[in-house]
């Protein structure tokens, strides 16, 4: 949770209807709860359990993560740029804290 998510877009000013590729990576330990500390206590689970991306509030993708997703969850996805606006991405942690990122999309 220490550094902001890194986001790459194939273009920030696509043509209307163009498919845009987004790559995201967020720094997170994704602790599975399968490990134990030195004194035998289980390390509590701490994962990002949900990622959601919306363009102007319209759903693009919802990702429900389990412990089988690698640490520092990486996701590349695509969306159709039907309108200009704000591409909002939200990662939700087990402890309900969120990481947010917003990218401005303008139509060419």
């Amino acid at each position, binding site marked *: 949770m220490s550094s902001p998510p890194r986001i790459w877009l194939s273009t920030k000013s696509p043509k209307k209807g163009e498919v845009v590729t987004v790559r995201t990576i967020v720094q997170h330990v994704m602790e*599975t709860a399968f490990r134990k500390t030195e004194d035998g206590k289980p390390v509590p689970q701490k994962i990002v359990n949900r990622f959601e991306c919306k363009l102007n509030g319209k759903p693009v*993708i919802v990702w429900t993560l389990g412990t089988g997703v690698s640490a520092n969850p*990486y*996701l*590349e996805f695509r969306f159709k740029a039907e309108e200009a606006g704000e591409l909002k991405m939200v990662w939700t942690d087990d402890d309900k804290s969120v990481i947010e990122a917003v990218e401005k999309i303008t139509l060419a």
Partner: protein
Amino acid sequence: MNTLSRRQTFVLFGWAAAAFALLRSSHVAAQANDIVAEFTGGKPPVAGRVELDIPFTADNANSVPLGIKVDSPMTADNYCSEVLVIADKNPRPKVCSFKFEPGLGVPYLTTRIRLAESQNVTVFVKMNDGSVFMTRKAVTVTSGACAPGG
């Protein structure tokens, strides 16, 4: 993590893996079946319509690249609504799932997953009409995400 040396961490991983191996085998298989049954809603999955891009051999089981591409027009009356990734020999077989909606959604994605050991990775895809498609690939891992290191 600060209190654990690298070696201790590896040893603990080892014990955890051994304990799991004893408990797991039947339990996890049943768990995977339940998850899939819930997802499909009883419909038998048909092979096809989803491309699964995953290496045949994974060098780093903690980070196995996984690509999914669904053959769907994504129109309002014909779209892919859900994707489920199952690794049936992982301690928790449900790796992750995705939801799409028509309009802006494009059912194409790449991520990285953990695999506890060599196993089949299966992707199930549900269309808006409830039909279910699947693709399965076997992946060999050279060291599992839960196995003792080196």
